[in-house]
């Protein structure tokens, strides 16, 4: 996973609530067995017409936002399906940071696991950042994870919260599994607890 330290980038404003993961990546694109290549299908229904042509009024089809690396939305971003294809599609498009007043739980988690930083900020601040984003290509936002601040084009800084463990993993580009495997002894001793006889093993021959 790529590290996330500091990002200075164009932000795309999407002033919509409840952007669900079916919108971020429709089901018909979930047939892939890879993590990459989904960027061109991100937001497909809003981005392309029935013939596959770009719809000019959709923000990610407009300059400079087709180069956006930050996405700003309204409440409950990423609700619905748990599909990790949603953050994969965003990442493949180029998005490394998503900002919204609130996020759906699974999507929020999935972002961190893919090196995307989700930042919850009050709606009013999201509105201000969207106004910045609308100023066009010179109006970049800087997201500094080390200092936990967003720097606006006017130099103003906006602090944000992030879970210390998640922050550490992102800054170092670490993978959770390796970390957990370091606790192998504790997991093994948990597995040998008595009184779990009612959790039977499922063996291959028994499933038909």
């Amino acid at each position, binding site marked *: 996973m790529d590290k996330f330290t500091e990002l200075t980038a164009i932000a795309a404003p999407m002033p919509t609530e409840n952007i669900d993961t079916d919108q971020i990546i429709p089901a018909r694109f979930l047939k892939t067995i890879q993590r990459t290549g989904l960027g061109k299908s991100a937001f497909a229904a809003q981005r392309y017409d029935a013939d596959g042509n770009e719809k000019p009024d959709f923000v990610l089809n407009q300059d400079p936002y087709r180069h956006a690396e930050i996405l700003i939305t309204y409440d409950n971003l990423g609700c619905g399906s748990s599909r990790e294809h949603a953050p994969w599609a965003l990442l493949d498009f180029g998005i490394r940071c998503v900002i919204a007043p609130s996020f759906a739980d699974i999507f929020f988690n999935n972002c961190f696991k893919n090196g995307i930083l989700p930042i919850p900020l009050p709606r009013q601040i999201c509105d201000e950042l969207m106004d910045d984003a609308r100023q066009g290509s010179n109006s970049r936002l800087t997201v500094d994870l080390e200092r936990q601040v967003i720097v606006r084009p006017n130099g103003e800084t906006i602090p944000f919260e992030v879970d210390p463990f998640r922050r550490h993993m992102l800054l170092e580009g670490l993978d959770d599994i390796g970390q*957990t495997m370091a606790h192998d002894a504790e*997991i093994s001793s948990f597995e040998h607890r008595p009184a779990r006889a009612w959790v039977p093993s499922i063996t291959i021959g028994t499933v038909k």
Partner: protein
Amino acid sequence: MPVTNSSRTLFDKIWDDHVVERLEDGTCILYIDRHLVHEVTSPQAFEGLRLSGRRVRRPDATVAVVDHNVPTSDRSKPIEEPQSRLQIETLEKNVAEFGIPYFPLRSASQGIVHVVGPEQGISLPGMTIVCGDSHTSTHGALGSLAFGIGTSEVEHVLATQTILQKPAKNMRVSVEGKVGPGVTAKDIMLAIIGRIGTAGGTGHVIEFAGSAIRDLDMAGRMTLCNMSIEAGARAGLVAPDETTFAYVKGRPFAPKDEAFEQACEYWRSLASDEGAYFDTEVTLAAEEIIPSVTWGTSPQDVLPIDGSVPSPSDVADPARAAQIQRALDYMGLEAGQKIAGTPVDVVFIGSCTNSRLEDLRAAADVVRGRHVAEGVRAMIVPGSGLVKHAAEGEGLDKVFLDAGFEWREAGCSMCLGMNPDRLTPGQRCASTSNRNFEGRQGPEGRTHLCSPAMAAAAAVTGRLCDVRELVKETV
């Protein structure tokens, strides 16, 4: 949290019993009893294991099934769509390589993962259960802590049999009283989502309680917990009781004899203690709930069947007004129109929300002696091969076929536009599934969520209508 006593909720108890270790910042390594795997969200996880040379820690606690991609027509033919076939073949290769028990497409027990788990006794009360699918919350009906995870977490569970998580907040939704005739678990859940909204449960696990919930059979409780995610919650739970034990007893993978008795004793101890602390409490009166449908493109866009579609001018927030307008345009509805009477093109009875035997019986009760309205395509997709078989044993297939319904093989089918069963642009569907998002059932398809009885009523009248009026006629 202002916990001043040692009283614990059902969620707290299951959680505490599965914490392997609490890390410095409060994140827990939580042990997972059952990991269910399907073809869509697992290929990249197995690939990750291979790349890092890791193995599956507990193949004997893992079960795989194919459901999302499978055609629900003739199973003797090969799968036509090459990408769907590749995804299924990839799963088969992975389960063989890592030694994971698997229900293949040709199995008589194959079906939707959230129908198969409880039906087989693979999912049991008191367990922690995960699956790379948000509707894993369904299994919470048994009184297990069950939640959906992403593919990176699937890989994490495969490798370590644990997950990293912080405890959720506790929410209790109580539904007290008795529901009226024609009102089902689906209507209760739609009413709850309509009340708290699609983000109302964010960060919480919802325990469903109250006399109306206790009165539900297991199928109804599964419908309820299934849609917890539509209320934004991480999971839904119902305390295990005698209804639960009667359901679990004798299932293929459930404990037997003495082990079962011991298990029941433990399961009984899981109910929330008197005075346990809930961060959020919501109460609904069962009598006030009437058969409901959704009008818009979010599950919170719920209307009682006698209601009218909202208007953007009803709300002050311009963003919300714009959203209502967009939903109206997408759904092809006029602000202020009555929802009843809206003509439908397709009726879909199926999905992990409402495809169990009890759901099919409820639909058949409405359909019996009637016929699908002219021009309507109506389909029944049982949740599993076993449900299909049992329904045929009761002659339900005949009721549906005689009435002009399609009677199909088990799978996710038209719940999501991923297999051959899809809406075409502009088609309007009364659906027993759980999501009415734009394009969910096929690009530009229009979804109205409702109960199996309401969907059946729409099929025979050709319109969204109040099932109670049909049932009244037959009484």
